[in-house]
């Protein structure tokens, strides 16, 4: 079954929540909805589910117009941020509840509940009550209730935000595995670019109610169609700086310029925004024509095995994503190197006009 959103607008009390969204989700696909808080992710999911009727546009499921079909008549399931379970029911009964409602025979319920619990590694908890479980186990139970019924569409609304990062890591990996073999459409909303990348599949980037780009997740990341997508879909966000291209030179300001290289030669003279990924800027030059910049350290944020270095100078604030642990004092002066061959160029409207080639790409 496929899901098509056609020209969806959604206006609530004069405020536009969704604007002109067109989206086609293929049968059996895993889709990530990426966007900041209030980007419209939840609203869009509620429209997909039938919990909300869009102000304009159509929702088609398997070719049938279901725009006004109630959620109860669609075969959809949803997992929320909060761990929502029936407190008075055991884990077994929680998972079995949708099947009981559908009047599935007892023996089949038993079989399916056990299969689902095994898949989610909670077989040993079936007799417990939700209050006796950890946060991770509660969310597994909630997911069990969703997975046990064969929904056509499963929606995840930031299901992992309330879990600690080690649990998130485990969940993401399991989810990928779980959905490899199912042929329902899954839609997973998140604010975190890294979560989107870890989940893979397809990604739709939302910003202020508009769909910026949709495609295979890696493609959207590596080949953003505009500067907003590039910023939304990278953590730390891609560094963006204004630049002027003349016949032979690129200028960031009067003081910082470098000769136009073969990469950027195709750009006609004018104003641009250049984007450089945080992981591409280094503390050592990697190529001869790397641009050297004098900067001051704002702070080095260290996260286990990597360092996010915030630096600034008169022109820019930059973030560097370094592998390994690097300690710097606040306000320490530093030289950083910007690779001129790894620059994304966006025109004055923000549309991408140049994407750097990747050595590792196929």
């Amino acid at each position, binding site marked *: 079954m496929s899901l098509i959103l056609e020209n969806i607008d959604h206006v609530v009390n004069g405020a536009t929540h969704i604007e002109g969204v067109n989206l086609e989700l293929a049968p059996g696909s895993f889709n990530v909805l990426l966007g900041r808080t209030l980007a419209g992710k939840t609203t869009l999911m509620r429209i997909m589910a039938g919990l909300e009727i869009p102000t304009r546009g159509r929702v088609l499921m398997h070719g049938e117009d279901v725009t006004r079909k109630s959620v109860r008549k669609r075969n959809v399931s949803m997992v929320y941020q909060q761990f929502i379970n029936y407190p008075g029911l055991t884990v077994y009964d929680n998972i079995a509840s949708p099947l009981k409602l559908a009047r599935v025979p007892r023996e089949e319920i038993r079989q399916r509940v056990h299969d689902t619990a095994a898949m989610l590694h909670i077989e040993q908890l079936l007799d417990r009550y939700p209050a006796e479980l950890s*946060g991770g186990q509660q969310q597994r139970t909630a997911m069990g209730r969703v997975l046990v019924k064969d929904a056509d569409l499963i929606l995840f609304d930031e299901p992992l935000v309330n879990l*600690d*990062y*080690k649990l998130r*890591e485990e969940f993401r990996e399991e989810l990928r595995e779980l959905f490899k073999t199912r042929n329902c459409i899954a839609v997973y909303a998140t604010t975190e*670019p*890294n979560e989107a*990348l*870890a989940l*893979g599949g397809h990604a739709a980037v939302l910003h202020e109610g508009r769909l910026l780009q949709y495609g295979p997740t*890696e493609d959207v*990341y*590596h080949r953003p169609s505009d500067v907003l997508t590039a910023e939304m879909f*990278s953590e730390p966000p891609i560094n963006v700086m204004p630049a002027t291209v003349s016949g032979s030179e690129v200028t960031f300001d009067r003081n910082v310029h470098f000769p136009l290289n073969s990469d950027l030669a195709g750009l006609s003279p004018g104003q641009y925004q250049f984007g450089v*990924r*945080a*992981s591409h800027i280094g503390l050592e030059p990697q190529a001869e024509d790397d641009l050297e910049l004098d900067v001051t350290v*704002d*702070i*080095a*944020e*260290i*996260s*286990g*095995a990597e360092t*996010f270095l*915030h630096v600034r100078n008169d022109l820019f604030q930059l973030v560097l*994503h370094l*592998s*390994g*642990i690097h*300690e710097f004092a*606040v306000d320490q002066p530093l030289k950083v190197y910007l690779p001129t061959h790894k620059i994304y160029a966006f025109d004055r409207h923000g549309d991408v006009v140049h994407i750097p080639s*990747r*050595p*590792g790409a196929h």
Partner: protein
Amino acid sequence: MAQITLKSLAHSYSASPAGPADYAIREMEHVWKQGGAYALLGPSGCGKSTLLNIISGLLTPSDGQVLFDDQVMNELPPEERNIAQVFQFPVVYDTMTVYDNLAFPLRNVGTAEAKVHERVAEVADILDLTSLLRRKARNLTADEKQKVSMGRGLVRDDVSAILFDEPLTVIDPQLKWKLRRKLKEIHERFNITMIYVTHDQLEASTFADKIAVMYEGQVVQFGTPRELFEAPAHTFVGYFIGSPGMNFVEVARTDAGGVRAGTIDLTLPPAFVAAIRQSRSRNLKLGIRPEFVEVLTEPAEAAYPIEIDNVQDLGTYRIVSFGFAGVTFRARLGEDQPLPERQAYVRFPEAWLHLYIDEFRVEVGQ
């Protein structure tokens, strides 16, 4: 100003603890030096909040002593300990202005108004609160409130330590790094011991010079962020720090005098083999971080053939999973590094390979 010493400290919430499992804090010795920036890092339920409450005096430990310099503090209530605390949810006095909030701890002990004014002005300046001094505290944003509650600790010149309990939980993600920077600035400016409790490795390692990692009521490692990353002292530290965590494989002695993992005979430096053969324990593990696993396209010396199960493209790097002696190993590769399709070879550089006996790391003479 004080050095905080925990001497044979242990705590149980049960009146008659039967075994180690009944202890929220297992017996420990620990010293927080005067003026240090420390973090207490661990998953929920590891005992870090209990420990924090013992230091602040909200909880009296069942065993051992808490010393500030040489003075035993066990029985002293929080108000007599000269510590300040910043809580997870900002605590401000709603009806007071920011100025009155900052002045509150000083006025409570009858400080002269001139002195109050001087201290409040100074602290407000450092925290960028000067323009807000006349505003009612209830109308501030979460990050401003959190700065006010920090400021109440900083105005006092008799404070020996500031304790932070997950202080950035309610702060907008985009503002977090600015507040982290502010915290570091403050630590460098004031010579105050700061202890920062969190479950987030980024917050701990960004803030602290030294991190105490807690697991099941014990501090399993006390070290710099670099030490936690490069030489985890306990398997839990290896797992908890880094994303993904460290790879571990159980190893055993062979009758032929070597070491094997599952069915793989390992080529290890002699010192490792010696250490493993000397140990009486059967709980032996080798650990290496994904960042240090070398993935090669061609066979090489001391390289093991493997089959790649999965490659995850995370944009700036890739995570390669492969089976090794029955467990899943992960290697982290840069985005430009060439990668074979399926058949590959992995090598574990000995500088980054660690031996764990009974879950704790053993120093192996090279």
